[in-house]
């Protein structure tokens, strides 16, 4: 009886370990899918333009490796010495050489200096062609190879002093992983980019502050102050979340034309200081704060204004952080409205999203710059998200559904 129970327990444990491994496998697979584009972005932002067009693609940025020889930067090549690919430097060029081949397997060729090949005087027929046979010394081995044609090679030397020979033009260059950090400064020097960055920060800061202010006010009113039609107004206001922004795109544009705000930075800020979602979020949080607090404060003669900012706001940091992060992401990443409201020619009022989109069309020849631009645009919201994650994920989502 007990042994059977123990066996059952062990079986269960084994199953649960297997299950956990399976879960981690699936989660990691999805995580890889989600993260790979960002890894690719970050790595490509550090590449040279040519490196971005490499095929087969390599994730890490690579550049031709060099070595200092007699105070001079010389390119490194990657050539086989004793069957092992070794980094070598070109020492001498223009050596008379021949292209040799093994009569047994004529598809393999070797370019080697004639000074290391001794004619044997024999002839061999390869592919219907009569060729001279040479005794070719490679390293400390000598083999009999047929001379196909003449060529010119260079002498390469490794750091260990080993020598090898190859045709310079076709010798594969050695590469090392190295980053082009100046891509970032270069992309910021492009027209509109630097200004777009500071504009985006300005617009986002103002929108976040405005949304926080109006949402805290409205949330408090809807949560704690009784006034006629309060719930009807609240539901109507909340229902406005369902109106697609697209429906008001044209009339809002026309309104902004009437106000003469089009093409100015303000057009990205002033209409977006009010947010039904934010009001809703703050209301949900305020409702959970015990109401006796403000009753006693009212008796003490405090105004609602002081109650709100002295009692409610300090208790509501999780909700405020959440809403702040949300409106930050919303403002920072907003694309359609800036696209419509800011004229393409007016780079002074660009924000990052439209500057990036333009860069994506212009810098087709150097995708590394596009990626550097994306990194600049993406790194701020990602850092903010990581900082605020604690509140963000747990808080928003719950109140979003209730």
């Amino acid at each position, binding site marked *: 009886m007990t042994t059977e129970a123990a066996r059952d327990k062990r079986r269960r444990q084994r199953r649960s370990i297997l299950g956990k491994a399976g879960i981690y496998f699936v989660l990691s697979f999805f995580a890889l899918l989600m993260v790979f584009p960002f890894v690719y972005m970050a790595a*490509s932002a550090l590449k040279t333009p040519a490196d971005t067009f490499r095929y087969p*693609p390599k994730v890490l940025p690579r550049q031709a490796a060099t070595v200092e020889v007699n105070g001079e930067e010389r390119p490194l090549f990657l050539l086989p010495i004793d069957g092992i690919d070794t980094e070598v430097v070109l020492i001498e060029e223009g050596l008379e050489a021949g292209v040799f081949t093994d009569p047994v397997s004529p598809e393999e060729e070797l370019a080697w200096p004639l000074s290391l090949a001794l004619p044997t005087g024999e002839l061999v027929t390869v592919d219907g062609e009569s060729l001279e046979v040479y005794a070719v010394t490679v390293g400390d081995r000598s083999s009999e190879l047929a001379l196909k044609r003449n060529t010119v090679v260079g002498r390469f030397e490794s750091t260990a002093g080993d020598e090898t020979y190859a045709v310079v033009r076709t010798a594969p260059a050695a590469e090392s992983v190295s980053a082009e950090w100046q891509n970032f400064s270069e992309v910021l020097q492009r027209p509109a980019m630097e200004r777009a960055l500071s504009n985006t920060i300005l617009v986002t800061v103002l929108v976040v502050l405005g949304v926080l202010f109006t949402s805290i006010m409205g949330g408090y009113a809807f949560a704690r102050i009784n*006034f006629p039609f309060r719930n009807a107004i609240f539901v109507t206001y909340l229902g406005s979340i369902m109106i697609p922004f697209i429906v*008001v795109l*044209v*009339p809002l544009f026309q309104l902004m034309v009437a106000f003469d705000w089009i093409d100015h930075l303000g057009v990205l800020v002033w209409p977006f200081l009010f947010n039904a979602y934010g009001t809703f979020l703050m209301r949900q949080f305020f409702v959970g704060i015990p109401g006796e607090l403000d009753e006693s404060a009212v008796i003490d003669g405090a*105004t609602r204004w002081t109650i709100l900012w002295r009692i409610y706001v300090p208790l509501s940091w999780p909700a405020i952080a959440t809403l702040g992060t949300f409106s930050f992401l919303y403002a920072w990443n907003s694309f359609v409205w800036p696209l419509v409201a800011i004229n393409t020619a007016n780079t002074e009022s660009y924000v990052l999203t439209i500057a990036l989109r333009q860069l994506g069309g212009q810098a087709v020849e150097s995708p590394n710059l596009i990626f550097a631009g*994306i990194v600049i645009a993406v790194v701020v919201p990602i850092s903010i*998200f990581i900082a605020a994650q604690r509140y963000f994920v747990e808080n928003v989502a719950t109140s*979003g559904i209730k």
Partner: protein
Amino acid sequence: MGLPQSSKEERLAVNATISSPVRARPGWLMALGLWQLLFGLGSGVAMGMVASGTGIEVIGTPRLVLLGALGLAALLALLSVFDIWRLAHRGRLIAFVLNLILAAVAGFFTLQEVNVFNGLDALGANFGRGLPFLAVMAVGWLVSGWATGVRPEWERALLLTSRGLMAVGAGALLLSVGLLPGLWTFLTRIVQPPAVIFLAVAVLAVLVLRLVKSSQATAAFGSTSKQLEVIDGIAFVSPNILGFLAFLGGPLVISLFVSLTDWDGLGEASFIGLGNYIELLTDPFFHRSLLNILFFGVVAIPLSVIPALALASALNMKLPGMRVFRALYFLPAVAGVVGVALIWKQLYNATIGYINYALLQLTEFVNLIPGLELTAPQPQWLSNPSTAMLSMVIVFVFSTIGFNTVLFLAGLQGVPPTLYEAAELDGAGVWGKFRNITIPVLAPTTVFVSITTTILALQLFSEPFILNAPQLSPNGPDNATLTPVIYLYQNAFERFNQGYASAIGWVLFLVIFAITIVYFRTQREDGVLTS
């Protein structure tokens, strides 16, 4: 707005009023009545001007709305004069609302005349210089965050440092971005008409507001605390309500009107009834866009909802490292659609892109099975009509799946763990628990997630606009990625058929609305069935 309720003098005044045996009508009350009378007459005159078209020219629905609003204001103002004379609280309430609106409108026009709204450009031009100081402020803010939970003697020092950093940062920021010249320009402009007139009206309205809200007025009108609460409530929701009316509600009404005209956004608009909507019925491009978005929705919505549900239930197992996964899944939602789309544009590249390279590698791997000789598909993802929309689906799913996962996770965290424990005791396996507990409990969340994803999917714009937009009219190959919103954008801002574009917007709105209602219906039926 923050209106301090009672200062010392006011309290003394209250005592004075209460102590007098008769409810006298003091001078300020007469002034208030007179102001309200002026308000009513002014609104009436403005209404007359709008009606006759002299001085103020507005057309269409906005004109009707404005006429109605002014007429209502005039009536209410006159009513409040009567109430104020009777010392009825209603007069106070009306006066408060009307003057709040007046203060907002006059304040708006003042700032508009002084060019404060567009003055943000000047701030933007210098803002780069201020960024280091903004960083100083941010550091100060972070310091205040660390201050909680450390030793008390440190807390004081940290808080002081934090406040100091923030104050110095703010001061330096304002100076470096040119606060002083800005203020000077503001002052020189605000003393010139018409700004100064608007300013005077706004200041007067604010003074009246203070008066109406004062405790002196409370005493005179004998308002109860409940009635006072109403005034407070209106004051607190007013920023939201006014903003909503100005920038969402108002435009929505205008949009409905514009959709019934042939307006090009510049010239005269003539009313053509349902003409735009009838034209949409036979517009092949609009039909194409609807078909495209239907395909997109049918493929993309399940793909971004169902795996999210599975991922969320895996993340909910409370194993170590789940927070990291959760954050990783959320990355695309945080990064923003433009950046994400541009990254994918490179990944989709048919000759050097990673996707086709991965397909090649995968095929080679599969071909290791003896007897198999598959050729790797190397599609031209974005320029081939049959894969273009599929490419959009992938990017969309990539950007939305993480957010949906977090929403599901939140729904799951509301499930009592005892439910799962009880099921385990009954011998339920992983699948059984998922099928019989997770899915029913998550029904409301699923509806919510599906609705938000659907609304997003139907408004697909940025992905095709960026991925398929080397030229100005990005319809993709053979209109394969023409979506309703792209069609709307093209009509509104490339061809300037703004009436037609508004009609497209409304059709889209109605579709979204209908789908939302259907979703809610199914949920209700499910609820009936399961309970």
